[in-house]
């Protein structure tokens, strides 16, 4: 009797798992094995770190955007037009860290057809240890390699099964997009306005909403040297285009208040000094664009800018504008420092409120 109990229980469990696994493999909702042809591809924002490695392996492109949510509103085609050549795939992950970026870049590079990678350089992505992941406990690394045998957490997953059954049943839930050109686009779901930005602020603690940790130069450099330098050094045939993104002026006030201004700008200097030695690197800097960063109507919150700024930024990237050079990088950094030091939160908020009243 106990023997039969064991045999029947294990066989039934194995059968259920086999059925679930077969469904998940065949439907493949996170596009790990193929681009779907029997249904419209679904790009699930809450599963970016699961879906992006599959997109990186299976789609045809020669330029990848590997960036945080700041670049999620950039369609690949927009970058193609700005550069005048190539085909771009957006592979952004919200709250991307340097480690997340390296792993995704390695997956993209393993295809052998990636000639350029565009990164945004986010100071906060270098916080934490070199293997710090931006979301969740750890990356699903089994999806980032080119073998399938270790994919059991994906194939034998209830989360995958729910998506597979939704697709098979033709259920259209919220939370996904279907356009591979702009898989992670969210700008049409929010409002960009100075009023919203200011309303959401905690003036005593600008970092309250984001809870970004304190960074040290030593810690940032460790992450940089572990994640960025090897990528650039070991892939000389690939061009790496780094863009310092245009945070709103409020971020610089926050950095200043939290004692993070010097560490950020020192990191920026070291970043340039080390990477500018590599011929396959271009570094662009949009952080002192006062026409953008002080216009809070173009922001959703203190970090995220509008598609209008994205589009202009992409055009500048394509045209090679705002590129840091050995001659101007110190001046750029000092200019940014003076902008940050002179910014006055009270005046900024008062100006927004006054405009509202008018």
């Amino acid at each position, binding site marked *: 009797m106990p023997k039969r109990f064991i045999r029947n*229980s294990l066989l*039934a*469990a194995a059968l259920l798992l086999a059925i679930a696994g077969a469904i998940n493999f065949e439907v493949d909702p996170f596009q790990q094995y193929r681009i779907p042809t029997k249904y419209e591809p679904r790009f699930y924002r809450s599963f970016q770190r699961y879906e992006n490695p599959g997109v990186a392996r299976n789609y045809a492109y020669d330029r990848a955007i590997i960036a945080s949510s700041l670049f999620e509103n950039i369609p690949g085609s927009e970058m193609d037009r700005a550069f005048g050549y190539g085909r771009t795939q957006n592979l952004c992950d919200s709250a991307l860290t340097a480690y997340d970026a390296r792993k995704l870049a390695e997956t993209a590079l393993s295809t052998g057809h990636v000639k350029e990678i565009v990164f945004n350089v986010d100071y906060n992505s270098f916080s934490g240890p070199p293997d710090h992941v931006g979301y969740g406990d750890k990356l699903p690394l089994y999806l980032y390699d080119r073998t399938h045998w270790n994919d059991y957490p994906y194939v*034998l997953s209830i989360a995958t099964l729910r998506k597979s059954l939704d697709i098979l049943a033709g259920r259209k839930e919220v939370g996904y997009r279907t356009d591979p050109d702009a898989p992670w686009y969210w700008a049409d779901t929010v409002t960009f306005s100075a009023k919203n930005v200011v309303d959401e602020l905690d003036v005593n603690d600008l970092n309250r909403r984001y*809870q970004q940790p304190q960074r040290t130069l030593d810690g940032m450099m460790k992450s940089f040297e572990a994640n960025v330098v090897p990528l650039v050094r070991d892939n000389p045939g690939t061009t790496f285009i780094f863009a310092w993104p245009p945070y709103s002026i409020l971020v610089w006030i926050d950095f200043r208040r939290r004692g993070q201004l010097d560490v950020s700008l020192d990191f920026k200097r070291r970043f340039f000094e080390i990477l500018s030695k590599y011929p396959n690197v271009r570094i662009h800097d949009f952080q002192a664009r006062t026409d953008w960063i002080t216009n809070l109507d173009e922001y959703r919150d203190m970090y995220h800018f509008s598609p209008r700024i994205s589009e202009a930024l992409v055009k500048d990237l394509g045209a090679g504008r705002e590129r840091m050079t050995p001659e101007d990088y110190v001046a750029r950094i000092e200019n940014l420092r003076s902008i940050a030091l002179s910014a006055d939160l009270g005046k900024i908020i008062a100006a927004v409120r006054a405009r509202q009243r008018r």
Partner: protein
Amino acid sequence: MLFNSYEFLLFFLPAVLAAYFALGLRGKDRLAIAFLVAASFFFYAWWRAQYIWLLVASIAVNFAAGRAIVHRAARNEATRTLLVLGIAFDLLLLGYFKYANFFLANVASLLGIAPERLDVILPIGISFFTFTQIAFLVDASRGKAREPDLLNYSLFVTYFPHLLAGPILHHREMMPQFADRTTKRVDWENVARGLALLAIGLGKKVLIADTLALQANDAFGSVHPLTFGDAWLAILCYTLQIYFDFSGYTDMALGMALMMNIRLPQNFDSPYRQRNLQEFWRHWHMTLTRFLRDYVYIPLGGNRRGEPWTSCAIVATFLLGGLWHGANWTFVAWGLANGVGLVVLRLWGRTGIRLPALAAWLVTFLFVNVAWVFFRAPDMASAVSFLGALRGGGGFAGFRLVVAPVTIATLAAACAIAAWPRNSNRIVAEMTFRWPLQVATALLLAAGILSLSNPTEFLYFNF
């Protein structure tokens, strides 16, 4: 390696069981023990291989100390110095890896200087294997334990079902089982009961605890003020989450050990059904309570020196128990709350007033809920803020956090299961092997394995 991982459930456990019984069937008992030790080290190394040295060093020192204590005791020589040295080694190890940064931060705060942090990672399970070995040394000095064989001792400490999160074992309850030849032979009834217990534990962990964790994490991580409803829902979710998480883990540990014909001590026995705090502690994390009673409370004098001393001993024991759970003032506060709660209960008992059963249960359950706030909150300020929300400080207007229907359904199921008189141990002890339980076991195993993806860590690994 986590119990709730594909690697453990699909590869490690089946392979270990097969090899263990294959060696046992060929009569290679010593080899079977050696294999289990090797498998347990592999199990530990899966987390961070470089920390194996720590486990090896801890075993080597405690084994040598225990052996020397036994030899000296046999010659009627004093063992106290050796015992103190052995325990000091254990506490220094624990102190360095677990409490050094806490200590430095508090000293820096007192002196008003910038805190220095040591680059130390808390080795997984260190609190458990340290306490297990302290108990062994004390038992050796009392003549209750002796272990001349390093391989056997290594298995006692590293046996993978209990290595990371207990139960905290007594040497005398394990070694006879490991020495028994029959435990190396397949006993299909034990395998069947163990499999059912493992399936129940897996279900408790991944289907219930991990689901409830989402609501609790949202609330305790929220940067916005919580409403009365948010706070009470969150603490209720956490109260049940921690029970299903830790008792689920323990069920899995007991289940896989039973499959190897080893009976580990029970750690939970329907704690949330109890009607006073003392009974709660007799049914919650029972092997820790036993350890604290035998090795802290009684040596402190227990109840032999009058009421004031007894009260102080209770509070001191629970302060230590709180600190054992983590290097944070929140754990100290949690221990203090429980210690004071037990003292109040003793004083109440002297009045002779007896509450109706329902009222007694409600007071106990509410006390335990509120005390968990300190256990879960990341710092004292957050705990105080959360307690404010429980009193309605964040307003009474419904819920500000999103409450998923699955959370409510899981919470209702969790409450019903926690209140049900037949807990997992009784179900398995009394089970027949008919088809409804076969179906239930298969469903729990399949659903549990399908829910492993992106596993959250068992809460007790950091303690």
